[in-house]
């Protein structure tokens, strides 16, 4: 019987050796100008996850550093960033004053806006193409559960001529704390007093109806699996799944379909505070999609004091430099809006101002 044990031990050993071998191979890949190597861990919003994954692959080629980004929702991103379990966080809705204060224990937080995206209202309705018209109040009633069928008079009134089925509406929403939810509820609350005084505006609200799912992906999956389903997802997710999406009434009264152009239009003409914590919901432009926003990467101004090693801080800074540099050219390819030039300038300044133990980070 001792043979058995020996055999088992050998198997385990062989596997460990095999694993070590393969990992050392993979970490020596890549061939950019300056090799930083190693890896950095981030977690947070699922809204920009597609673009961060694309950037991660590019950044790995350039700097040799692997970016491990886990999409756990903005709430999780802010929380894990504050708890210091990740090298950088990510959120779609800027941290609230309370959250900033909670993170202050580790130091001053820096919001680096990375890209613009749109929250689409996606639906799964037989025979219905993209462009179903919705305004804030009607959308709020759908998500409140007051409008239960697709041929409800309120929807029909906005879409004269469209043949709407008497299909039940299945609402899909987030189960995790999400910046996407905050953006969406901000929009709903602006047009619906019932929403404002009911579920309210936050990263997670007490949903009166519907199925909760994890991440933008989960909501997309829910919409896809339910005939008559409706949910709110970032544009890239709608695009990727060939979803039909609603044209939403903006501040000027025009119905705008989500697109790269209307997303970028939302980034223009908005006022941005010095700490860059801003929102682009209900942007003033006539061509602006009303539920668009920038999404943010979160770091501490002095990363080393917050617990990162010096070379790790260097990698994070390089990653942010990439995001606000070459990354901006990649973003539009997957339908994310690049930052407007004024905002990009301030974002770059924030990245340049990052420190390690009081000293600027070189490279």
């Amino acid at each position, binding site marked *: *019987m*001792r043979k*058995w*044990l020996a055999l*088992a031990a050998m198997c*385990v050993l062989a*596997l*460990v050796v*095999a*694993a*070590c071998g*393969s*990992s050392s191979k*993979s970490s020596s890949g890549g061939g950019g100008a300056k090799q930083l190597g190693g*890896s950095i*861990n981030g*977690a947070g919003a699922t809204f920009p*996850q*597609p*673009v961060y*994954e*694309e950037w*991660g*692959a590019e950044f790995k080629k350039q700097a040799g550093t*692997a970016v*491990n*980004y*886990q999409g756990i929702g903005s709430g999780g991103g802010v929380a*894990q960033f504050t*708890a*210091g*379990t*990740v090298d950088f966080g990510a959120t779609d809705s800027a941290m609230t004053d309370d959250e900033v204060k909670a993170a202050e224990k580790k130091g001053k937080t820096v919001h680096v806006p990375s890209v613009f995206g749109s929250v689409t209202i996606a639906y799964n309705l037989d025979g219905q193409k993209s462009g179903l018209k919705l305004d804030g109040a009607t959308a709020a009633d759908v998500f409140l559960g007051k409008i239960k069928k697709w041929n409800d008079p309120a929807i029909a009134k906005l879409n004269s001529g469209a043949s709407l089925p008497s299909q039940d509406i299945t609402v899909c929403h987030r189960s995790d704390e999400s910046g996407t939810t905050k953006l969406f509820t901000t929009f709903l609350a602006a047009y619906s007093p019932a929403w404002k005084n009911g579920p309210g505006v936050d990263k997670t609200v007490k949903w009166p109806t519907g199925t909760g*799912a*994890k*991440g933008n*992906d*989960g909501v*997309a*999956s829910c*919409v*896809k699996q339910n005939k008559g389903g409706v949910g709110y997802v970032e544009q*890239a*997710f709608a695009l*990727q*799944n060939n979803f039909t999406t609603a044209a939403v009434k903006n501040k000027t009264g025009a119905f705008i379909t989500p697109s790269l152009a209307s997303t970028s239009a939302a980034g223009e003409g908005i006022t941005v505070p010095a700490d860059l914590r801003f929102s682009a919901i209900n942007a003033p432009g006539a061509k602006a999609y009303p539920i668009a926003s920038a999404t943010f990467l979160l770091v501490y101004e002095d990363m080393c004091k917050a*617990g990162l090693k010096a070379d790790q801080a260097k990698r994070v800074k390089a990653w942010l430099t990439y995001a606000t540099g070459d990354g901006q050219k990649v973003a539009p390819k*997957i339908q994310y809006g690049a930052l407007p030039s004024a905002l990009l300038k301030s974002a770059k300044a924030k990245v340049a101002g990052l420190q390690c133990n009081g000293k600027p980070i070189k490279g």
Partner: protein
Amino acid sequence: MSALAAISPRRKRTDLMFRSLLLGATLLALVPLVLVIYTLISKGAGAWNVSFFTTDPTGRFFGDPGGIKSAMVGTILIVAVAAAIAVPFGIGVALYMVEYGKGTRFAGIVRYFVDVMTGVPSVVFGLFVYIVLVLTKIGGGFTAWKGSVALALLMLPVVTRSSEVVLLLVPNSLRETALALGAPRWKVILRVVLPTALPGLVTGSLLAVARAAGETAPLLFTAFGLAATSANLGGQMNSLPIQIFNDVQKAQDRLVERAWGAALALVVMILLLTLVARVVQRRSATA
């Protein structure tokens, strides 16, 4: 009263009816198994090819989603470390209860609390390790070895209780013979008790490993996730259950397909472990 009284037709009918009901229920119990295995194979096997096992998930939003190499390697590593903690620990405790603490109050208390441990839901163990090790950032935030610790906590009571049963099966006469020949107690344990019980210990441990390999919740809280293959237990690590958990909640067919493929791989792994455990058990039974 005649012992061979004829059974009335009504009683015969009742008998037949209940017998067929029982048979029907047994067959009904197997329906989910057949359905699960059928769906797994029909949807999972399609995802299987060489690159599925030799590439890491790319995480790319469009195009090739990549395979499950990092998840397989991660599961094997995390579970191996968990077993390295839980198996010696569990067998040690079982040895104490059988060899030294038999009938003592202390052993009774230990046994009681080991039983309590078996009932703790895996998510609570995950939460516990998350609070005690992850949030306190002992040796980094999310790391694979913390996942191993959480799994070891799950395995520990299983190993202990199954080992205890097996050790109790070792005939006392063997122990007494060895002791009478002048062997010290530790040598009796090492040379007589353990070798005699070895097949049973291996079986119990393998079944505990099989159970731990499929656990998701504890890893979600500890090893987190990572696309790339990694052997660094001090960093985040991918695993099959986490890979499946992430892919299930995706809308894209190519990712859901990977989830099926990974699920099939996980089930095959667990069944192989269970099979080996049974073979060891059967061998010892016939030997």
